[in-house]
């Protein structure tokens, strides 16, 4: 064997060892291997390494991509990345393999005679542009829509926003982050007046206590979970609490696993506040100077009906009135409702209340995909605000994101119906600013939000929307109450365009399919959970005729006569877009790093002020925008954070005699979202080849089923048959069934309910009622 071959085999072996170690770290949290055996990957002779954020989750690990002969052949964690410090999870290690699935979409398809048939890119783009134009001419500009993604790069989202809101003049722009992060946004806006976490991942290195609220971090944010476990190994007294509705790998690795009944997290959070005030653990000085108390509307509904409307009405209240409100949430009373013992509630309160402990609360889909998601976010902030544990290293309420650029592309660029790249459409100044930067008349930008995601697909079903362009997302797997929305998309006079990298159930309903350049086949930026923007260059040629989502939209806009708004070239458009976008955020509250800086650094946290990232916001010691010498919650006009009285309210659907089980849906470590990429990576697919219904062993015994036996799940919306899983990966409580949603051949969203939080309009995928039978 030649020395090059030996090097190559050595290299592959190191890759294999590194991915096994990464998998072990998530399967057996806290596991240690001898360091010398896990030394970094050797540089293969002809392998070139380039930096990129990971394609998959919102942790946003910095990766080094190994390139050889115009192919991506290897991945390692970037030791220079402050996010993951060289670590990587099993999805990250295999991420480049997702580029090379056998059935990558490489050619446009147009539906002719009921069948998707190959076409040229020119033909396809001409058709999309003419359909969009004709639809607007016939039915008005609010009859066309774009539905994008937290996996869009920032330039993709920016082009979509300018195209739809500025140029066409419709607010029919939404992104799938509505389904995962909207409650986090409205939580931040209502409590602080500005979106996104005040802290950063460095909080993991400082906190003494970590409380995970309905967040299976070991599988969903594995690298951050490893950082947390690492802190427990290094420092005495670090405690990890898993507060959840089901027992998972996260629970196994935690110091305490506390289980609550679905929806009752609202009551438990209030009970924690009750205990904090009762024991005088609140920080009086902080409360007086930096907080106000508010109440809002109650019995706010669930959004189950079309055209549902809701507007909150905040009212002032005093600390004493807040105390009186909490009287309903004595731990002993909440114990009955929640199933959490008063002792455990008091224990959690004591951790938050201990003045000598720094506490980090971490959450993601549990509190967000919740019919009271905004309230849940408010309640977690309440706990941190009552104790003054916020905006300083290690004191950090931290809402994590699921997708690699839910923050960067959706929340920062504002690719939601109400938002602009700076501010919201109903704000005159924000509209003026956008119009000036975009060079469009301000009258082009409509002051009225139109449809949030669920309502957008309802409008498509009703026929109010006739044309929809879906990019980098798979709503025909991920929409709740799926059957209605799939039937709607298939109706006669609807025109559906889908841009993606693989065939999916969403491309199945398309009239035109556009092959998209994936991740490092184009240049872009992602923004992760900690306000960090990361740039990646184009490392590979797109496959076949694929082009990036941004460039697809630019091509269509040009064909519609809007060339002057998109005057860039294919080569320079990402840099030019960034220069334009940069103007929206200038200033010390949200300044972003210049393009050249992003290209050099392994990520930059905004606000980026005087050449420095702001790691903690709202405290003068760390944040140049904060006035005075301590806290300044400058998102609100009076500089004060809002503590909200938010009650427990039941979910719209609970188990009953006909449908006696809770259905909870979610993800697994190995698969990314709807599985369209990870199911094409053999190792990830083999690890979890299909969805399953996870049951509690005693329910399984009652039903007479064991792992692998078929069970039939039925809700008021549909039925599905799938294999049972008992005592395997996770353990639901009795009367609960958990199903992952990654499997397009077992569409669990046929059963879920399209109820949503009336404030955030984010659906609740965690709670509906089903019947389970042996099939």
């Amino acid at each position, binding site marked *: 064997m030649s020395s090059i071959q030996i090097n190559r085999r050595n290299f592959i072996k190191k890759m*294999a*060892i590194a991915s*096994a170690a990464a998998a072990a770290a998530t399967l057996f949290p806290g596991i240690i291997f001898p360091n010398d055996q896990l030394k970094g990957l050797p540089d293969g002779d002809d392998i070139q390494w380039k930096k990129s954020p990971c394609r998959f989750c919102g942790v946003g690990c910095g990766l080094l991509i190994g390139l050889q002969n115009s192919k991506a052949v290897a991945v390692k964690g970037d030791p220079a990345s402050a996010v993951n410090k060289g670590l990587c999870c099993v999805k990250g290690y295999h991420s480049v393999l997702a580029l090379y699935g056998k059935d990558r979409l490489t050619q446009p398809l147009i539906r002719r005679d009921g069948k998707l048939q190959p076409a040229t890119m020119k033909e396809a783009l001409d058709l999309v542009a003419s359909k969009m134009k004709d639809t607007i001419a016939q039915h008005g500009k609010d009859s066309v829509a774009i539905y994008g993604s937290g996996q869009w790069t920032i330039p993709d989202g920016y082009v979509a926003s300018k195209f739809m809101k500025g140029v066409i003049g419709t607010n029919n722009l939404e992104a799938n982050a509505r389904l995962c992060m909207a409650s986090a946004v409205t939580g931040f806006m209502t409590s602080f007046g500005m979106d996104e976490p005040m802290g950063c991942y460095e909080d993991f290195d400082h906190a003494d206590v970590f409380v995970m609220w309905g967040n299976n971090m070991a599988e969903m944010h594995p690298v951050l979970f490893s950082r947390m476990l690492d802190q427990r190994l290094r420092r005495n007294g670090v405690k990890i609490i898993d507060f959840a509705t089901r027992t998972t790998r996260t629970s196994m690795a935690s110091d305490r696993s506390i289980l609550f009944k679905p929806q009752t997290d609202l009551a438990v959070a209030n009970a924690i506040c009750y205990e904090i005030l009762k024991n005088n653990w609140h920080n009086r000085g902080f409360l007086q100077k930096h907080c106000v108390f508010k109440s809002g509307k109650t019995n706010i509904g669930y959004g189950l009906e079309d055209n549902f409307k809701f507007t909150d009405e905040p009212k002032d209240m005093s600390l004493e009135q807040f105390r009186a409100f909490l009287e309903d949430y004595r731990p002993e009373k909440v114990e009955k409702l929640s199933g959490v013992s008063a002792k455990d509630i008091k224990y959690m309160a004591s951790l938050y209340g201990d003045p000598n402990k720094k506490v980090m609360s971490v959450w993601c889909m549990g509190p967000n995909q919740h019919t009271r998601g905004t309230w849940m976010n408010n309640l977690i902030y309440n706990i941190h605000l009552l104790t003054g544990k916020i905006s300083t290293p290690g004191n950090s309420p931290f809402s994590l994101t699921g997708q690699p650029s839910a923050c960067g592309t959706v929340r920062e660029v504002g690719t939601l119906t109400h938002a602009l790249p700076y501010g919201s459409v109903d704000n005159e100044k924000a509209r003026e600013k956008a119009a000036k930067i975009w060079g469009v008349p301000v009258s082009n930008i409509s002051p009225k939000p139109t449809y949030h995601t669920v309502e957008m697909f309802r409008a498509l079903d009703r026929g109010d929307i006739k044309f929809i362009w879906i990019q980098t997302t798979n709503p025909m797997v991920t929409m709740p109450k799926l059957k209605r929305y799939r039937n709607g998309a298939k109706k006669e006079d609807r025109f559906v365009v889908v841009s993606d990298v693989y065939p999916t159930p969403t491309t199945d309903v398309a009239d035109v399919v556009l092959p998209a350049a994936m991740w490092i086949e184009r240049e872009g930026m992602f923004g992760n959970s900690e306000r960090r923007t990361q740039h990646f260059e184009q490392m590979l040629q797109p496959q076949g005729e694929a082009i990036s989502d941004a460039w697809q939209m630019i091509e269509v806009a040009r064909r519609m006569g809007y060339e002057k708004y998109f005057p860039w070239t294919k080569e320079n458009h990402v840099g030019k877009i960034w220069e334009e976008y940069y103007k929206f955020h200038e200033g010390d509250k949200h300044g972003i790093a210049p393009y050249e800086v992003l290209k050099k650094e392994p990520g930059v946290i905004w606000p980026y002020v005087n050449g420095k990232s702001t790691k903690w916001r709202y405290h003068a010691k760390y944040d140049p925008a904060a006035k005075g010498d301590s806290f300044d919650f400058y998102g609100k006009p009076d500089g004060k954070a809002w503590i909200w009285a938010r009650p427990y309210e039941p979910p719209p659907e609970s188990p009953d005699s006909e449908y006696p089980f809770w259905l909870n849906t979610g993800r697994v470590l190995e698969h990314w979202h709807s599985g369209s990429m990870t199911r094409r990576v053999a190792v990830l697919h083999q690890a979890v080849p299909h969805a399953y219904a996870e049951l509690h062993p005693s329910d399984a015994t009652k039903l007479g089923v064991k792992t692998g036996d078929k069970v039939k799940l039925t809700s008021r919306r549909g039925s599905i048959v799938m294999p049972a899983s008992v005592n395997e990966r996770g353990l639901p409580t009795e009367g609960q069934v958990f199903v992952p949603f990654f499997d397009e051949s077992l569409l669990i969203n046929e059963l879920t309910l399209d109820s949503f939080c009336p404030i955030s309009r984010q659906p609740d995928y965690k709670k509906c009622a089903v019947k389970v039978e042996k099939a």
Partner: protein
Amino acid sequence: MPIKSYLALAGENKLEALRTEVLALGCEAIPAENKDVLIVISETKNEEEDKALLEKLNRMKNLRHLTLVSAFAE
């Protein structure tokens, strides 16, 4: 020429015995320091040999569970 990595879970206190078995089959083995878990790296000439090896790995006496993590073909 497939190169694969597996995680092998040993029976209680059987990590060393399992390691010996893995080494005897011509694989590399990296035991964890604090759990009964072993990283196994196999290198075979072709698919057939690979399949035969997997069968042998699965028959190891001290093995509780074997999971494939990654597979690379040259």
